[in-house]
């Protein structure tokens, strides 16, 4: 029995289109009409259509009513999904701007209540908890001081209170900085459109279309909730992964078409990078499909929800797959550790140096959409889609169980999907703030040498788990616990790549194996 919740948009739109079509059918005249009507041929259809001497409007309409109904249902669902995606996507640049602002400790309006900045000449607005009414904040102050003195550093400049000269921008009381992405987009719309003189005009125009179209098509197959999806074919996973992989080709065309040496190198890098991460990505997704037993994304999430008896999320069954999916998705959407195609340092702006105005704005938005799609997919595949965390354990609690069940009934599934996706995007931004950019030949080697075998291993684990331990009803408790513990232990052991012997000789804390192979300088002598 598939999971369901009250926000049954698919059902409503089906009912609505059925009801409206029936009304149209009833309004039409039901009596027979005996008149010969021929409709001449035009570009749309070749030979003229002649309606027979006696025909009945209602029966004619009845024959095409199911097609109209499904067409109306599909349009409603597409608009609903697209509007939810576009509206909730405004949160993505906001998360990026605020979280990276916080990581970079910017003075700008950050969501944080504390900033490491001291105002001019040490003036601060005092601790934020002192500004709570009726002195309610005092206990927080004591706790903070106790913690600071015990574990924190007591350096007086370090524990710096919030800056007082905080100048917001825009409607300060309402999420400062939220409409910045909106303003950027409107400005892109009013920019002049420049096509370089000897650029390849046709490909220059077509490349952004490829990128933007494929990005939006990906959202056709991504369900936001049990009943909120634009299309739900049997093999939605295959469709979606296929479409996801086309955009880097558009990047390559854009790079080639702008007739600029930087963009040419950027485009070549994107094509080369494609070969490095595409195969591991597909094998990881295959692992998920094998474990969940179906290629339909909604069924994958249902498998994780376990038809209301509570089942284990895939992240605990194959943490290796989750890690691989995260790494390959970052490479797919070309974010910081793997964003060589648009590396500012050496390629000015990479493949989109020659694009400006609305084309660049749309591609900029498309890049955010692809990251958003990657986050939602991670949430659906590994974090149990629209199932609230601990949904079944909480609702089975003896005393408080009832409260939780009503809460989970009231909140639609979409809320959980979006929260998980935004949390994932915060992880993307965190990775962007802390890692450097990898070279193209290093990601190619990393992809073939590490990602590919690991994704194979992950597939083997998924098949083994599915065949050996899957008995129809939910997993026994020890299976996910064992897998997670083993994987966590292995990760910690393997992550320590400090080479003690190299450390004390050459004072280089790390012997990164790749240096010997990937370093080009060694061949110079």
């Amino acid at each position, binding site marked *: 029995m598939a999971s369901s919740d009250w926000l049954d948009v698919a059902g409503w739109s089906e009912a609505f289109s059925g009801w409206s079509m029936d009304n149209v059918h009833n309004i039409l005249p039901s009596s027979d009409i005996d008149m010969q009507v021929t409709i001449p041929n035009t*570009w749309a259809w070749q030979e003229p259509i002649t309606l027979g001497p006696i025909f009945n409007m209602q029966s004619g309409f009845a024959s095409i009513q199911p097609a109209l109904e499904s067409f109306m249902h599909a349009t409603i669902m597409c608009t609903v999904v697209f509007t939810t995606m576009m509206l909730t996507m405004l949160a993505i640049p906001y998360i990026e*701007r605020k979280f990276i*602002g916080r990581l*970079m*400790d*910017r*003075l*700008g*309006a950050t969501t944080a209540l504390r900033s490491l*900045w001291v105002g001019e000449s040490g003036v601060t607005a005092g601790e934020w908890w002192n500004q709570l009414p009726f002195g309610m904040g005092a206990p927080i102050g004591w706790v903070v001081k106790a913690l600071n003195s015990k574990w924190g550093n007591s350096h007086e400049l370090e524990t710096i209170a919030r800056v007082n000269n905080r*100048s*917001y*921008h*825009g409607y300060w009381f309402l999420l*400062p*900085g939220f*409409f*910045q992405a*909106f*303003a*950027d*987009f*409107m*400005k892109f*719309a*009013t*920019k*002049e*459109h*420049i096509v370089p003189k000897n650029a390849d005009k046709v490909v220059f125009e077509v490349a952004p279309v490829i990128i933007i179209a494929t990005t939006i098509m990906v959202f056709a197959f991504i369900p936001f909730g049990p009943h909120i999806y634009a299309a739900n074919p049997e093999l939605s996973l295959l469709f979606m992964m296929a479409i996801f992989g086309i955009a880097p080709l558009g990047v390559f065309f854009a790079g080639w078409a702008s007739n600029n040496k930087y963009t040419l190198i950027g485009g070549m890098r994107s094509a080369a990078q494609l070969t490095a991460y595409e195969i591991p990505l597909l094998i990881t997704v295959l692992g998920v499909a094998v474990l969940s037993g179906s290629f339909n994304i909604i069924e994958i999430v249902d498998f994780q929800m376990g038809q209301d008896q509570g089942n284990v999320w895939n992240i605990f069954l194959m943490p290796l797959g989750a890690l691989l999916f995260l790494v390959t998705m970052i490479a797919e959407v070309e974010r910081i550790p793997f964003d060589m195609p648009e590396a*500012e340092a050496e390629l*000015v*702006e990479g493949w*989109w*140096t*020659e*694009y*400006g*105005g609305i084309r*660049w704005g749309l591609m900029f938005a498309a890049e955010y959409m692809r990251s958003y799609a990657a986050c939602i997919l991670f949430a659906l595949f590994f974090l149990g889609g629209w199932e609230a965390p601990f949904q079944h354990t909480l609702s089975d609690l003896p005393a408080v169980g009832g409260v939780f069940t009503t809460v989970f009934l009231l909140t639609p599934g979409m809320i959980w999907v979006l929260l998980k996706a935004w949390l994932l995007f915060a992880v993307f931004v965190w990775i962007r703030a802390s890692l450097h950019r990898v070279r193209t030949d290093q990601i190619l080697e990393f992809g073939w040498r590490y990602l590919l075998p690991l994704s194979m291993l992950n597939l083997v684990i998924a098949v083994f788990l599915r065949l050996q331990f899957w008995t129809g009803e939910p997993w026994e408790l020890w299976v996910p616990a064992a897998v997670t513990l083993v994987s966590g232990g292995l990760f910690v052991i393997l992550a320590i790549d400090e080479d003690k012997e190299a450390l004390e000789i050459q004072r280089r804390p790390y012997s990164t194996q790749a240096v010997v192979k990937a370093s080009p300088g060694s061949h110079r002598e």
Partner: protein
Amino acid sequence: MADEGQNYSVFNSRMLVDVVGDVTDEALKASRMKDIIGVLAGRMFNWGQRKSLFPLHLGIKCCALEMAAAGASRFDAERFGVFFRSSPRQCDVMLVNGPISKKFADPIVRLWEQMPEPKWCIAMGECAISGGPYFQSYNILEGVDTVIPVDVYIPGCPPRPEALIDGFDKLRQKIIRIGAAPGDSMPASTSPLILGDE
């Protein structure tokens, strides 16, 4: 509109777009909706342009460090939508922050022409305004406005980051006054408009 005997039997998307465009335009003009939309859209796009001024990542000399300091965390210019881009195609403001030597004269003009139309130029620092301490030098142009039209002058050697952010504020006031549509950025009168003292 019919060029070289276009036969209308074959469906032609360009013709459809033109026809629909003209018809709606006439209708809106007749019903005076065009002015309302014009005002609304004008103000909205003006707000959009004002709130996201992307300067070009062009560092010439000392003022480049003050530009970087303005972009960094203490004088965060990113709160005002100032986000440094490296390609001239994606920028609206060219922030000239150093002396323009003869060798750099035509590259900077080429950069200026590569920028899409509603573009402005901020001359930051004495060297960009009038050649600064090097006005006597054999290799320095006396100010950027010898080669490209300048909208806002920020005096100082180097001007403090607060002055740079105030310069962007002056540019925003100018955008409010002159409008952000392409071609508006160069008003007919070329005499510099002194803001704030009228």
